[in-house]
């Protein structure tokens, strides 16, 4: 990586006093409040902040583009000496895709499902008259090769649904490169990917940006990622700049309090304990094999969870983590094996379990948004399991709901009559926790409960879950792909790969070598704050010839 001092290619982009408004309920509200962004040729600028900070909006403004419902209301945008604000839409179109291009978060949604990858690649250069079709195809193959896509000569002739997420993300980077732009906006390009896939995409993106000396604005909420990618970092909050500095200084010596809290987020760590395994486990998964139709997704899985224990299950998407949860809750009856609670075997199908057996195990989901009924008040959402499992009504019910709200640190009288739409993401997840707690379970399955949340909010949720566990002696099965979360909350860790358990043990053992080969890959792929981490890792992997990601990224 080059430091900003070497990027003396001159000024490329200058946005001054940028103001952008968004429309909410027929009213225009300012969502970007006078931000200055300056970028030199060949420089990579990181924009970081939580959701709602205005990162993407600012990134798109660099192309003088505002999403429907937004408008650029003030400030100047000068790209390579041209005033974009003074240009006609027609003139701006000629710049977009040619001199400034964009890489979106979800490659799967941003490729048109009806056309082949290479057609979408060629569209830009051909329509803008930069290259003819044959040249564009040859160039696509060259870029696919540079981005380390498998079978670069033929992969372009596939449709988007025929390649994996990591491959699509790289194909989109190639598409953004098609006209050799001066500037590329990367908008959270790896957020939707597994950790082992993410690292390969990060490395190839950085490599290609360097090869062509392309300037970039790299938008992310992940500090460790931005530390690898950017020369300079801007921290944003509520549409305003909090702090700006070059990467090394920003990582080692953040000045503002807000930045420091962002940096400190990964500090929460609960005291992990070793459990007496001679007693009967609370939940025992005993040689379970499960399948969706003819497709077997769990192969002879066994593990135990003891009272008061948190077991984290990690693995990439498709490794069978969530399927294991479905078997335990009875949503997917196993083909072979059984689930035992306190030594007693449960029926495989939840419909044949007693209310008492159902009450024991509750779930909290990843998307709090979709897991609660938006048309019900908090009172009904939390009250329903209280009525169903505990038979409460009237004043008892009311009191219990309030008690639960207090337990999840929300002011009862203020929240009890609200609708989910009036709550923030973190508050909704707290409501989901309260709903799970209402059944007075002994065991809760947390399925990626923090992955949709900003880091500071996520940390609050983890602390809450930890407190509830200590007070009530709960056991958790914590499904996640985020190893930082595992570090924070687990007592024991199970690593899954292709429906099998590849490693299983106490957390501290897990995080100290020797590991299973796959665990090692997983652990080493978690980005670290050190700006040199990616370079060193790629170098080490090149020397050792580490196993490739299993998801054929």
């Amino acid at each position, binding site marked *: 990586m080059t430091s900003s001092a070497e990027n003396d290619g001159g000024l490329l982009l200058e946005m001054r006093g940028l103001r952008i408004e968004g429309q909410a309920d027929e009213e225009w509200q300012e969502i970007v409040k006078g931000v200055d962004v300056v970028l030199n040729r060949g420089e990579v600028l990181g924009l970081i902040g939580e959701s709602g900070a205005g990162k993407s909006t600012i990134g798109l403004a660099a192309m003088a583009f505002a999403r429907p419902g937004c408008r650029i209301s003030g400030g100047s945008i000068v790209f390579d000496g041209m005033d974009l604000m003074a240009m006609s839409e027609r003139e701006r179109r000629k710049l977009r895709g040619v001199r400034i291009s964009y890489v979106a978060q979800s490659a799967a949604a941003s*490729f*048109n499902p009806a056309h082949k990858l290479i057609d979408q690649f060629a569209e830009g250069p051909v329509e803008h008259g930069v290259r003819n079709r044959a040249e564009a195809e040859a160039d696509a193959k060259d870029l696919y090769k540079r981005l380390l896509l498998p079978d670069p000569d033929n992969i372009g002739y596939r449709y988007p649904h025929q390649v994996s997420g990591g491959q699509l993300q790289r194909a989109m980077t190639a598409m953004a490169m098609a006209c050799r732009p001066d500037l590329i906006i990367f908008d959270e390009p790896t957020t939707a990917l597994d950790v082992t896939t993410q690292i390969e995409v990060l490395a190839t993106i950085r490599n290609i940006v360097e090869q062509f000396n392309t300037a970039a604005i790299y938008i992310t909420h992940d500090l460790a990622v931005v530390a690898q990618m950017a020369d300079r970092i801007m921290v944003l909050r509520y549409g305003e700049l909090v702090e700006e500095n070059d990467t090394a200084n920003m990582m080692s010596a953040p000045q503002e309090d807000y930045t420091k809290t962002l940096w400190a987020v990964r500090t929460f760590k609960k005291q992990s304990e070793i459990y007496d395994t001679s007693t009967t486990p609370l939940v025992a998964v005993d040689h379970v094999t499960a399948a969706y139709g003819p497709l077997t997704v769990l192969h002879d899985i066994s593990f135990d969870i003891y009272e008061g224990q948190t077991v984290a299950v990690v693995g990439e998407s498709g490794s069978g983590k969530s399927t294991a949860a479905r078997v335990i809750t009875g949503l997917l009856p196993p083909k072979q094996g059984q689930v035992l609670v306190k030594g007693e075997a449960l029926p495989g199908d939840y419909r044949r379990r007693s209310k008492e057996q159902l009450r024991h195990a509750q779930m909290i989901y990843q998307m709090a948004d979709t897991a609660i009924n938006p048309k019900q008040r908090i009172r009904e959402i939390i009250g329903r399991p209280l009525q169903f499992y505990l038979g409460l009504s009237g004043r008892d019910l009311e009191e219990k709901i309030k008690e639960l709200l207090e337990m999840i640190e929300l002011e009862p009288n203020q929240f009890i009559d609200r609708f989910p739409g009036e709550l923030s993401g973190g508050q909704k997840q707290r409501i989901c926790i309260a709903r799970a707690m209402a059944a007075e379970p002994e065991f809760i399955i947390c399925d990626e409960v923090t992955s949709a949340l900003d880091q500071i909010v996520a940390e609050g949720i983890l602390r809450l879950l930890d407190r509830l566990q200590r007070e009530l002696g709960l056991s958790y099965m914590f499904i996640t792909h985020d190893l930082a979360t595992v570090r924070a909350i687990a007592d024991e860790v199970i690593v899954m790969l292709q429906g099998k358990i590849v490693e299983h043990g106490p957390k501290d053992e897990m995080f100290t070598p020797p590991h299973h080969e796959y665990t090692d890959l997983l652990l080493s792929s978690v980005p670290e704050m050190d700006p040199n981490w990616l370079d060193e890792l790629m170098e080490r992997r090149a020397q050792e010839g580490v196993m490739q990601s299993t998801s054929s990224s």
Partner: protein
Amino acid sequence: MFKLLKIVLQRLGLGVLVLFIISVIIAGAVELLPGDLCQELQGQSATKETVAACRKELGLDKPVYHRYFVWLGNMLKGDFGVSLANGRQISELIGDRTANTFFLAIYAAIISVPLAVALGILAALHRNSIYDRVVNIVTLSSISFPEFFVAYILIIFFSVNLGWFPSLSNITPDTPLTEKMYKAFLPALTLTLVVVAHMMRMTRASIINLLASPYIEMANLKGMTRRHIITKHALPNAWAPIVNVIVINLAYLIVGVVVVEVVFVYPGLGQLIVDSVAKRDIPVVQACCVIFAATYIILNLTADILSIITNPRLLHPR
């Protein structure tokens, strides 16, 4: 490709089954009609003996299922039977009229489908503008009036007041094409007004839905022109829902023309079916119903196949 063929064959098989069920329903419904055909035919002069003889001659004395299977068997051979009213071969009777009805339907479709799709795309592009509102109001009004009303209004304006087009569309097989088009213009326009709103609104909704998707934003950010985005990115993905609505309306153009044909005295199937019901000419009614049902099924099959062809996930599996 093999998968596609399999789906098509499956749908075809299903279509045949549906057609068979419909034939049972038609035969059953006809059986339920009140009155006796022979009584009706002979009118005042009917005696017990002549009615019985007539029933025997027409096979009406046989049990229901027997008659059904004979009818079905003959129809599979292409023999629709003989009209009871005038003794002519039904296939011969229906032939010209079917051609006329299809002519009118295709005529109306050629006007209405491109019009509806174009209006829909423009309405989607200029959403909530004056243009959008006007198009919505006009098409909705035209669909809200009964067909015969629309037909008479058109006759008043174009035939009575302006005298541009004839109010009677009495065409024969020998009429030259241009004259046919001239004479059938008002019925075709009536049908267009009735079906265009539905197709236009569906086109508008599908396009608006698609314009919000990330790959449209991506195309914008690649600097593509609006026209390119609509034709290359939005339409290919919008086809499936649009095609379905178009096909339902095409089927309506063929099956639902009864009133329009009667108003304009257009010699099509619709008019024939109305006449035949009045005359209790059961075999003709049955034959018309079977043709209508088959048209519906074939058009829906076409819609299914078209939506499969336009979906790359089905056409190009992983």
